[in-house]
């Protein structure tokens, strides 16, 4: 019995380590070149200074982070063998793997961890990740202690995926900290800590990575090489999956292409692997302007806009329902919030009640913006849907993204279609949209001008709450208020899908998708 228990525990532990992606029924094979794809040019391969999904894939292969996550959102050891959060939540100790080396053979030490935190704090756009980190102590080569000004549970997710890349101090420390973002060795001669090292980055063509033989996990990675081709046209990518030129690709989001590839033999198309990045589509409403300042008007709009139509007709069934600012795959998601099924009578009643009576079939005018061509159908649909309740909508196209971003940042809009990412913990990607101290501070801030003291309070409490269950409760109430007051009407997830061929074993379908090391992915023979 005792023996059996031990075996069970051991196999459970092993399964936990192996199971990022699918339960590995077959034995992984060493060797081979995985040909995969990036949908746009990479600005910077150094994920410590550049965020975003395109940098995330090569970045997480080149640079290791202290932790990684399993499918159940539980942290797992990676560069940190073990870790410990102090009782008061004010210090986090990382015990680094002893034999870890950078790609040039130098050992990875706690000095490098301290340096990387400094670089990320100075250069990375997500300031909330490490803002509470006051200093990093390095009592010995393999121990780094992060000292915090307040408890910061969001740190755990911020230490995984592409968010905390460990850089070699002896390479990137030769310039002032703020200048690491333009360091000549970001895209050329890069020295990383991850499972793969850089062979070549050719702008507009490809990123080629090669197995790092001295990687700190024995026997990994399984692949010899990864070729990331840069193909910007989605239709050309689709043909390349179909004719076998590409083994795998992520972030495909066109419903028509997703559905077509689903019918191709030998390909699997799945929405798994986007929980942590958490991309959400929504209808943003400027709560400081005209009729939209009235919560009843915003609710009426939600009743008049049919989510089902957006999810099933416009997105052709590829997008999942989302009801709050937190992605449905997140453990903090609360589905039990007010919803707004299509109901024109209710919408009309609410608009009457708010003091906007129907006169000659019309109540008032609004504008709607959009920042990129892909969401034009949604915007045109909103126009048509709101006409039925007497709201005359003018669609304002923007010449390009910066034009739209400027309008949003300055809150010069009534409504807009928008896509925003969670980026791991709600503290990083969710708070920014609802925090009343973050109103109108550039694109993807609180551009709705939303302000609610209780929401601010709930976010502040959740940010420092160490008990996961209590945090969940705080976020549950937060989501209920958001779904009632509707600074944004959440309609659906952005239908990101990963495509992979039957030849690929263990594709990266964990919470971070391709923004994690794919050291366990292999090519079947």
């Amino acid at each position, binding site marked *: 019995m005792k023996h059996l228990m031990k075996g069970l525990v051991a196999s459970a532990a092993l399964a936990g380590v192996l199971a990022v992606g699918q339960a590995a029924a077959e034995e992984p094979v060493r060797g081979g070149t995985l040909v995969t794809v990036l949908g746009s040019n990479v600005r910077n391969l150094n994920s410590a200074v550049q965020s975003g999904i395109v940098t995330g894939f090569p970045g997480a292969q080149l640079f290791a982070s202290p932790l990684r996550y399993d499918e159940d959102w539980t942290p797992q050891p990676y560069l940190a063998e073990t870790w410990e959060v102090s009782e008061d939540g004010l210090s986090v100790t990382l015990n680094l793997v002893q034999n870890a080396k950078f790609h040039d053979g130098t050992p990875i030490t706690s000095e490098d961890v301290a340096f990387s935190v400094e670089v990320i704090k100075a250069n990375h756009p997500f300031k909330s990740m490490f803002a509470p980190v006051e200093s990093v102590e390095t009592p010995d080569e393999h121990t780094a202690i992060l000292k915090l000004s307040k408890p910061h549970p969001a740190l755990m997710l911020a230490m995984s995926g592409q968010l905390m890349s460990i850089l070699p101090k002896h390479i990137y420390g030769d310039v002032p900290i703020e200048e690491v973002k333009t360091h000549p060795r970001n895209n050329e001669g890069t020295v990383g800590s991850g499972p793969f090292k850089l062979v070549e980055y050719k702008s*507009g063509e490809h990123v080629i990575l090669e197995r790092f033989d001295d990687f700190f996990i024995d026997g990994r990675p399984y692949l010899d090489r990864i070729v990331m081709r840069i193909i910007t046209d989605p239709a050309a990518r689709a043909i390349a999956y179909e004719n076998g030129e590409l083994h795998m690709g992520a972030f495909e989001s066109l419903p028509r292409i997703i559905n077509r590839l689903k019918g191709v033999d030998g390909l699997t198309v799945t929405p798994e692997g986007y929980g942590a990045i958490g991309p959400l589509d929504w209808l943003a409403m400027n709560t400081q302007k005209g009729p939209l300042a009235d919560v009843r008007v915003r609710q009426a709009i939600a009743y008049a806009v049919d989510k089902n139509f957006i999810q099933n007709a416009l997105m052709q069934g590829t997008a999942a329902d989302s009801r709050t600012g937190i992605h449905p795959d997140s453990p903090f998601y609360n589905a039990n919030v007010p919803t707004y099924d299509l109901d024109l009578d209710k919408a009309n009643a609410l608009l009457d009640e708010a003091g906007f009576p129907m006169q000659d079939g019309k109540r008032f005018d609004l504008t709607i913006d959009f920042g990129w061509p892909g969401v034009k159908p949604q915007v045109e649909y909103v126009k048509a849907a709101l006409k039925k309740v007497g709201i005359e909508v003018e669609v304002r196209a923007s010449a390009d993204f910066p034009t739209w971003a400027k309008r949003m940042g300055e809150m010069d809009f009534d409504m807009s279609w928008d896509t925003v990412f969670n980026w791991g913990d709600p503290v990083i990607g969710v708070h920014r949209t609802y925090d009343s101290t973050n109103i109108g501070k550039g694109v993807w801030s609180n551009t709705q001008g939303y302000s609610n003291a209780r929401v601010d309070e709930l976010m502040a409490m959740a940010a420092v709450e160490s008990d996961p269950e209590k945090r969940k409760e705080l976020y549950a109430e937060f989501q209920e208020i958001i779904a009632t007051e509707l600074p944004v009407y959440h309609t659906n997830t952005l239908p990101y899908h990963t495509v992979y061929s039957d030849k690929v074993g263990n594709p990266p379908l964990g919470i971070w998708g391709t923004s994690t090391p794919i050291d366990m992915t292999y090519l079947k023979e």
Partner: protein
Amino acid sequence: MNVLRTFLVRAGYAVVLLTAVLVLNFSLMHLAPGDVADTISQSMGGADQELLDQIRADYGLDQPFLVQLGRYVGGVLQADLGFSFFYNEPVTKLILERLPATLLLVFSAQILALIVGVVLGVISAQKPNGIASYLVTFTALFGYSAPVFWTGILLLIAFSLQIPIFPVAGMRDVTVDGNFWVEAADIARHLVLPMITLASVFLALYSRLARASMMEVLGSDYVRTAKAKGLSPREVVYKHALKNAVSPVITLAGLQFSAVISGAVLVEAVFSWPGLGTLAFQSIIARDTPTILGILFFSALVVIVGNLLTDLALRLVDPRVGGRK
């Protein structure tokens, strides 16, 4: 002497043109709301105001317009096209990396369109109401009317998916490793579809013009004389008529050079051809002013050089051009 003078006058025009291209485009780019800081923040999934301000300060975007313009033009005068905000690389390096791919595509498509266009035009001119002539006209008009991205995707579906003989995208297969000839063959394989796509548009123009001018020439006195001398129809067409018929086509090809380059933007986007077109497209979307201006500068240069080459070619086929006595 004459040639030298022509060349100097041309070079003078080129400098004026290039300056106008730079100043006008710089001003136009500046008029649009928003800037590259916004697209950098987009590529990073959002940034706060502090970081946006820092990016603007880093790249001098917070300076007054005239200061920015002065700095830029000053830099260009010292042969410095500046630093790409978006790609963090010197613009000259970025462009020189991409230029060969575009030149290869543009010149090969242009040559293909010219040769095939002239051959088709000549064939159809001999029997203007024959079936072959209608076929040529139909094909030409089809190629001209169809948008290039559509032709491109169709060719991809046909020859990369249904009959997989050509690769889908890019310019080379990174797994191919060999000597110069192996790599050249690999590039040629990748070149076929984009080249045909780009050539299809201009093929129409050249074949129609070649047909018209061939018909005109075939009706002229000296051709009748040649026929009367008892020369075979073959000799009449290819030895006597062709040289005269082809010179308007070459003139048109020169004038079309800028159109071929702009056509290349779309073709490159469809086939992920790593040339200037893809770069231009991405830099415009990213509002990366130095890169856009650099590309316009180089495109203008290529057009000027292309026109000069056309002139030279004309001199070769038609001795009357160039004012030689």
